[in-house]
């Protein structure tokens, strides 16, 4: 019990799902008094989700959260603030239309009544002076006029200001991302002073050196789980990178995905015009390529599989829910008048519902999760889908399919007109999802993309003419089968 009281915050088995995806998968995490915990992991590893939970902005779907040894049943932002837990979020959260002093007021309900303006200004000014000497920021400056680095300084300083509420734990999510080396050093030195004086801190950073030098303990996350946790001294750079995993290029991963076990049958389909006994078979965890010249029946087969999922169809057997990533995204994929968030959520409405209506909050959470996971580059998921570049629009369509409950994802040449960077990201995602047991049926006109597949069926005139395993796959063979035999 003593141990529990020494903890500022402790999460046991914390879980969070966004749609079918587990962002946090049973995480145990704690921060002791007077401790600086470093938290590292790749994008989408679940760090931010975990921190939102500690700060009270997200509710866990499972598990418990305890603060200073007391289990908190209805934990919220207000409760977290009351208990002295604060968070500097990665996205800047100042109001650009308000002055520095007014922004300070927002975090302190106690700053009210006569003379609050002066009190707020003094409070933030003193803290800025303490953390960043010669910062050059005045409390009357409007936040929107400040440079991004200065805004970040204000935000950090604001988190450490003290009025009525206590201050025990500050979460710093990428606090130095917009600071130059000098100010970053000032901040980290202040964090050390704060920790020495008994405060606690969670430091999230992609700069591993910062974490290694300033944290007492380091927690490494991957895929919504804690994969390593030890004293900072036990890690060095290489060990951290190894623990984070997945950093090495996708080529290695591609070579590794040789399946030995046979998954459950997901799809068995025979094209309508197939005369011989050849059929397409896809199992759980497989990526199946559909190759051949464009327009030789690949899309028809995908659509047949898609409709067979809802209504029985001769020659096609489907055993799990299906989602389709359309190839012609303008005509078949995108709801042109809708926001990005709505475009992503449409396939998962069942889960976004609250009673009879769609919950805007869940929709926003769902969209934000996928924004991070798949890296959709937009300032606001409520923007119209056309505010995105083509590659990012396609990512949104992938998010729509991958976020759904579908175990089978049909891809109808989805990479048309998509830049190489986006392609590589999506390849990685597809392989990752396949490793988790999803089945992909991937029609593509680009032979290189077939390298990602476990099995490739070559189509010609609406028929399957060849079935190539991973190791027998070459461009030559595909071309040969596309043009060859039955004319």
């Amino acid at each position: 019990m003593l141990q529990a009281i020494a903890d500022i915050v402790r999460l046991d088995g914390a879980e969070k799902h966004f749609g079918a995806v587990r962002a946090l998968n049973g995480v145990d995490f704690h921060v002791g008094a007077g401790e600086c915990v470093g938290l590292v992991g790749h994008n989408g590893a679940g760090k931010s989700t975990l921190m939102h939970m500690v700060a009270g902005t997200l509710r866990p779907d499972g598990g418990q959260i305890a603060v200073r040894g007391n289990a908190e049943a209805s934990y919220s932002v207000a409760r977290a603030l009351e208990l002295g837990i604060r968070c500097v979020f990665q996205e800047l959260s100042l109001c650009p239309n308000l002055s520095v002093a007014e922004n300070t007021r927002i975090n302190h309900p106690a700053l009210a009544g006569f003379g609050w303006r002066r009190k707020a200004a003094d409070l933030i000014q003193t803290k800025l002076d303490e953390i960043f000497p010669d910062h050059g920021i005045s409390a009357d400056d409007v936040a929107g006029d400040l440079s991004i680095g200065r805004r970040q300084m204000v935000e950090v300083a604001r988190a450490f200001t003290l009025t009525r509420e206590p201050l025990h734990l500050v979460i710093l999510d990428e606090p130095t991302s917009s600071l130059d080396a000098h100010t970053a050093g000032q901040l980290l030195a202040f964090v050390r002073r704060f920790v020495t004086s008994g405060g606690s801190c969670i430091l999230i950073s992609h700069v591993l050196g910062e974490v290694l030098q300033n944290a007492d303990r380091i927690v490494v996350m991957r895929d919504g789980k804690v994969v390593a946790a030890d004293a900072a001294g036990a890690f060095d750079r290489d060990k951290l990178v190894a623990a984070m995993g997945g950093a090495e290029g996708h080529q290695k991963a591609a070579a590794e995905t040789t399946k030995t076990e046979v998954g459950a049958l997901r799809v068995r389909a025979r094209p309508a015009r197939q005369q011989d006994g050849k059929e397409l078979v896809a199992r759980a965890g497989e990526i199946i390529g559909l190759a051949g010249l464009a327009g030789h029946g690949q899309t028809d087969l995908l659509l047949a599989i898609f409709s067979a999922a809802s209504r029985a169809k001769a020659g096609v057997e489907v055993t799990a829910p299906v989602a389709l990533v359309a190839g012609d995204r303008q005509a078949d994929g995108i709801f042109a008048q809708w926001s990005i968030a709505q475009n992503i959520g449409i396939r998962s409405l069942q889960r976004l519902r609250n009673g009879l209506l769609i919950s805007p909050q869940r929709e926003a959470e769902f969209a934000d999760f996928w924004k991070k996971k798949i890296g959709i580059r937009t300032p606001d998921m409520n923007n119209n889908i056309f505010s995105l570049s083509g590659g990012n629009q396609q990512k949104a369509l992938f998010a729509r399919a991958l976020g759904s409950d579908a175990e089978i994802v049909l891809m109808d040449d989805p990479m048309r007109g998509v830049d190489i960077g986006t392609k590589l990201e999506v390849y990685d995602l597809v392989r990752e999802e396949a490793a988790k047991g999803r089945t992909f049926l991937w029609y593509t006109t680009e032979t290189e993309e077939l390298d990602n597949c476990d099995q490739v069926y070559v189509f010609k005139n609406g028929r399957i003419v060849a079935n190539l395993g991973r190791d027998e796959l070459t461009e030559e063979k595909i071309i040969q089968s596309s043009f060859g035999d039955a004319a």
Partner: protein
Amino acid sequence: MTAIVPGTVPKSSPRGSGARARMLRSLLPALSLALVLIAIAWLNPRAISYFGFNLMLNLAIPIALATIAQMFVIAGNELDLSIGTFVGFVGCVTATWLRDAPLIGVAVLLGSIGVYALLGALIHLRNLPSIVVTLGMSFVWQGLAILILPKPGGKAPDWLLAIMSFKPPYIPFPILAALIIAAVVHFGLMRTSYGVILRGSGGNAAALRRAGWSLLRTKIVLFALTGLFGVLSGMALIGITTSADANIGNGYTLLSIAGVILGGGEFVGGRVSPIGAVIGALTLALAASPLLTFMHIPPDWQVAANGAILIIVLAARVLISRRER
């Protein structure tokens, strides 16, 4: 007029240009008002007098109140397209029930403010576009106004007539009223600690939620304030015109939006200025008919000329904002 320049002279260079452009922009409403006044003085020097202002700014008080009402919703990134017909509805209630059965009249007016608060809650909870909701409501208010007063008529309560015909020494009443409205709202929205939260909800709603504030409450408060000032506007209007008409306020919707924007407000981002909004309303009231009459523009062309003035002033604002970037 010096009160509209809140910022001091910028001290350091990096954000100096931004602050300067902002100062320029906050001066623009006063500048445009001054221009209109100078034009009037040049065309007809006798208009610049106690009596002249009383006459020219006759309708400025209800316009200023409606503009303030609009400013509150705009501060929360919403828009109220029903304010005009709402003012008309309030006018009809004022000219009938408020005179004949004051208790019912007061209850109806308070109830209509409550309806505004509920609209704010609805818009927030269901994430509805305020334009659609208030457009719908504008027909509701209009319909109610016609039910109450099918044809023009009614009479303002005597106490209201007495207030609106008040003649203070030296300062014309419309100017005094404008000063008071601007000062009260400026203090409430720009200086109090909850005013910061209200404006913050337009600036960065997510940040406010994370700091533990209720966005539902801010939206309700902003809409209720719009309702309150809408009621004041309708009553002031009837105090001046003495009788009502169901269509009396219809022009106020666009006038109030124009007044807010003319006064330096922006449609999104919680950037509004009560003093600017009042100045914007005065400018519009002056440019609307006195200036154009003095310019011998026939009434047929006055509406178009009014629009032209609006476009010129707003274009100047866009030019200044663009330089900010």
